[in-house]
């Protein structure tokens, strides 16, 4: 199935009218044809989405972020960085192919807050937030692709093993990927390999405070050392300098 994107005019109109269209974000079906009254609102691209592609629907048990990351990344594995940063693509998917998924995962009805906050919520999840750096991990569809993109390791038996580590808790994904050092190509994988290496009974790096401690450590080092110079294993070693300390402390407290 050929993949479309929003026309710039359609994107502009939808972004401008979020407040006026809030009620439409509760509709069961995508409403863009009615919104644009028969005029062309999307464009062909040279990209393809498999005809059978669909998102797994979140339920009370799980958001299925991992499975949806896996499906979306495999479907669009060859996106270039510029293509992957294009709001027209992700806003299109949020409002069409991913509409039912978005309704479940990022329900607007259940959002508690002022009308202004609700507008901002829709903007951040269905479009791009003004901070373009964070937009790719906030948009409801783009974030799925980005999580897989930064953690995919094709040489593993399960190439999404580190994606699974990242998505254990949403806080970890956000803590890591909203920091500028997460753009060091090898760093997210190195962090996840270290998280994986510690059994939770020794050191639970999925714990918010522990993980933040490690992120602060990496941030401090990154202020002096150019992290891009280090290999994956060297980055792991650097992270373990801190996690070993945390484990010793945890052990001492338990004793």
């Amino acid at each position, binding site marked *: 199935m050929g993949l479309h994107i929003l026309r710039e005019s359609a994107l502009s109109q939808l972004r401008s009218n979020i407040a006026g269209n809030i009620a439409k974000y509760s509709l069961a079906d995508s409403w863009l044809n009615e919104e644009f009254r028969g005029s062309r609102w999307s464009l062909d691209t040279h990209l393809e989405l498999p005809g059978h592609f669909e998102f797994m629907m979140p339920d009370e048990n799980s958001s299925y972020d991992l499975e949806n990351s896996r499906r979306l990344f495999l479907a669009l594995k060859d996106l270039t960085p510029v293509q992957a940063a294009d709001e027209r693509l992700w806003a299109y998917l949020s409002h069409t192919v991913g509409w039912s998924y978005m309704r479940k995962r990022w329900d607007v009805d259940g959002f508690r807050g002022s009308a202004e906050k609700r507008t901002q919520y829709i903007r951040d999840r269905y479009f791009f937030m003004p901070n373009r750096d964070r937009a790719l991990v906030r948009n409801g569809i783009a974030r799925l692709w980005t999580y897989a993109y930064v953690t995919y390791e094709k040489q593993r038996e399960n190439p999404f093993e580190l994606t699974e580590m990242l998505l254990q808790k949403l806080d970890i994904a956000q803590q890591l990927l909203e920091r500028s050092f997460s753009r060091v190509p090898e760093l997210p994988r190195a962090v996840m390999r270290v998280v994986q290496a510690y059994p939770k009974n020794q050191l639970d790096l999925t714990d918010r405070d522990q993980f933040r401690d490690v992120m602060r450590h990496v941030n401090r080092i990154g202020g002096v*050392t150019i992290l891009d110079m280090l290999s994956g294993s060297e980055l792991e070693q650097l992270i373990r300098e801190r996690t070993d300390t945390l484990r010793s402390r945890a052990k001492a407290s338990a004793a």
Partner: protein
Amino acid sequence: MKISYRSYPHPVLSYFSDDLVKCAFQATVTADTTQSYFRLHVACLLSNRDIRAFIESGRAAYALHIECSATRFRRMTLSQEPNFSYDIPASAVQGVVDVCVIVCATEHIENYKNSHFHADYGETRFSVSKGDVLAVAEDRTFLADNERDQLRRIPSIFEVARTTEPDAAAMDVDLMGNKITIQLRSEDYDRYSSLVPAAHLESVIASLVAVPVLVEAIESIRSSEDADQEYGNYRWYRVIKSKLKSDGIDLASGEFPTTTVALTQKLLDQPVSQALQTIELIAEEE
């Protein structure tokens, strides 16, 4: 990555400190653009003999660090030579690209001593780890503007959109996107849409709709502390900057030779003159 003023645990040759004296590290970076890549040419000038010796022995290297926050692209390339080039795929960057040139250690250096250390350091020696900065030149940015839309072609910097908000102003503007969005109330948008096909009215419509919006955009640029940082990720800004540059106007300098109104008329090819001519013709025909 921007390397702004900071204190390092060891002396670093930089433009913002006197850790090392009577020496300097400078670098120029220029960019050539093709359809498929941006080629950065780096020329370094390092007047510190001790750091040069580390580079020549392979214990340190010149490094070019590139980062584009909009696309999350980040790379570093090393060179043992002071003049080198690096190609960035056009598919990897868009908008503001931060570039910095540094000298960093490629291996651990124990007992680092430099004959140009500030006297305050005395005989102190330092431990330097692999990846640590030894010298840093001033940061710079370049704007990566892909001529080709990586997904589709974008012909214009303006987009007119209908706003359905009940209390909306007759016209408003949104600068936070790749195009400048002109927001019109529903009934005015319908009128605009019906008038657009009338080619002879193009300058009149431009004067009414595009001119005030472009004035707003340029005033926003002028009043910004760092327009490249604030708007560099948006294509409309890069187009305007490029057009002004070809007329010898440097946005970054903050010095504009004319008023914003005059500048806008120039950018849009004098729509007010054309509009008045059109209106004159219409009046004559009546």
